[in-house]
């Protein structure tokens, strides 16, 4: 949180689907090095907001500023090229590739030499390929999948598949990582490990935004939490503050906090 210019700014971000306002004028900022949680009840507009940030859905109006540049309405691959990586709510891998090739494929944006350089057998291309293979191995080590690197991604158990998704995203060497419900379907033990991994990811210099339902994960890892309900931001702050916020309790429990 050293720099003053936020890494990501959302300004009055809105998305309408016909008459439905899924996200309504949401403003927030994320500083470099932060871990920010995005929570809210089902249907609150979290995923829509998430999709707008990473370019897979254009906002109806509002602005997204990433790294000081206006990135509103850029496509998903452009956002990735600018250093924003994401994972998906439903497990999303390259199923018929080996675990290693999944991660190696993720290094795409870091490489500068392609087919033509490969045809010419450029020394730079060989060097880069070797470098990327090394990076992929390191990332597999980091997420703890080294011993499964030759297995097909589709044969991994669920928990490992979620790790592999994070590994693919990390292979792009992102500045900002958006995690869409990474703990979905995990048991408490796996959830605890995930908390550790997200903290380690921050140690690598990656800023993290996560959408999550598991409160334990959110409370355990986030510096700051943004609460969305019915498309609007209703609260923002450190986890303890947000957990006691009357409006948050109302939308989650459907009533005011009861004082005994």
């Amino acid at each position, binding site marked *: 949180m050293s720099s003053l210019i936020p890494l990501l700014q959302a300004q009055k971000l809105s998305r309408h689907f016909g008459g439905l306002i899924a996200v309504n004028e949401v403003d927030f900022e994320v500083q470099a090095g932060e871990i920010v949680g995005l929570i809210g009840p089902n249907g609150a507009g979290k995923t829509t907001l998430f999709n707008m940030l*990473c370019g*897979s859905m254009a906002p109806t109006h509002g602005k997204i500023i990433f790294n000081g540049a206006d990135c509103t309405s850029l*496509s*998903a*691959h452009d956002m*990735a*090229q600018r250093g924003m*990586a*994401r994972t*998906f709510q439903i497990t*999303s*891998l*390259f*199923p*018929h*590739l*080996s675990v*290693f*090739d999944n991660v*190696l*494929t*993720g*290094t*795409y*944006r870091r*490489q500068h*030499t*392609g*087919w033509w*350089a*490969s*045809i010419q057998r450029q020394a730079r*291309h060989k060097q880069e*390929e070797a470098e*990327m*293979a090394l990076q992929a191995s390191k990332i597999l080590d980091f997420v703890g999948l080294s011993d499964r*690197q*030759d297995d097909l991604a589709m044969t991994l158990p669920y928990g490992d598949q979620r790790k592999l998704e994070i590994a*693919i*995203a990390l*292979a*792009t060497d992102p500045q900002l990582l958006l995690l869409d419900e990474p703990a979905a379907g995990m048991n408490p033990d796996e959830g605890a490990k995930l908390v550790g991994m997200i903290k380690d990811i921050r140690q690598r210099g990656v800023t993290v935004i996560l959408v999550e339902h598991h409160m334990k994960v959110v409370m355990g890892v986030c510096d700051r939490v943004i609460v969305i309900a019915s498309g609007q931001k209703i609260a923002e702050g450190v986890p303890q503050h947000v957990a006691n916020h009357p409006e948050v309790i109302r939308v989650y429990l459907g009533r005011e906090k009861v004082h005994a």
Partner: protein
Amino acid sequence: MKPVPFFESAKAWWFGLLLALLAPFAAFNDYLLHMMVLWGIYSILALSLNIIVGFLGELTFGHAAFFGIGAYASALVVMGLGLPIWLGPLAAGLIAGAFGFAIGYVALRIVGPQFAILTLGFGAIIQTITNYWVDVTRGPMGISQIPPFKIEALGLDFSQASHMYFLVLACLTLAVYICRALQSSRTGRAYVAIRENPELAQSIGINTFKNKWLAFTVATTMAGVGGSLYGHYLRVITPDLMSLSYMSALIIMVIVGGKGTTLGPVIGAMVYIALLESLRAFGNLRLVIFAAMLILCVIFLPGGLISVWLRWQNRVREN
């Protein structure tokens, strides 16, 4: 690093090339050599189709049309414009590639079965135009007496199978080299990523449309060069080259051989040619046999004949 299967290794390819170079001396017989020339040309076409079907994972029914465009373009620039014959393949590649570039720009915006149907439509349009634009293409009669490649100083006449075989083998080697270079680059990985999971591919920074467009253009250029080789060798071309029967033959080669690999289409072309000739006694029943083979392959060997080797290798490693 994961072990590379033997047939993907450079060593295996050098060995294969050596075999292919020696083969004509072992069985010197014009008929067999003619089959081997056809095998080489079909291999180039199957390799080019494989870039779209195997790597990108999009089915196209328009590929034979680009093969035909190449054959016609080459014959017409040499015979009509009087350009030197060696510019034929170059013109064929450029013109087929330009068509691929334009059609790809439109067609690649849609995916899956709709894309396949659209390419079928483009293929049909190109074939129909070739059939009816009699002033230029001579219509259904086709173009005959196309001049063969020649190097008179060396006494080489490439209308003879024994000479043409080595020219085709050189072109096939180049095509294999290009495909292998693709596989060991980020471009190749991007194609496979688009096949496996386009949404995830975008999220790691791959511009899916641009990558598909490049793949389609290169593949159609290669098909055009293959068409040129074919035309100057057989010296007769008709609009039939663009028909669905050629298209299905190419699809059978890629699927039966093993899509998404470089050796697969080359093996597939060999199997196709071998069966086509050895089953000649069955007449048109051959097509039924090929169809059955395709169906069996899709059900029992989705990875093609190549995957038999892989399975065997895995079993050996486990024991």
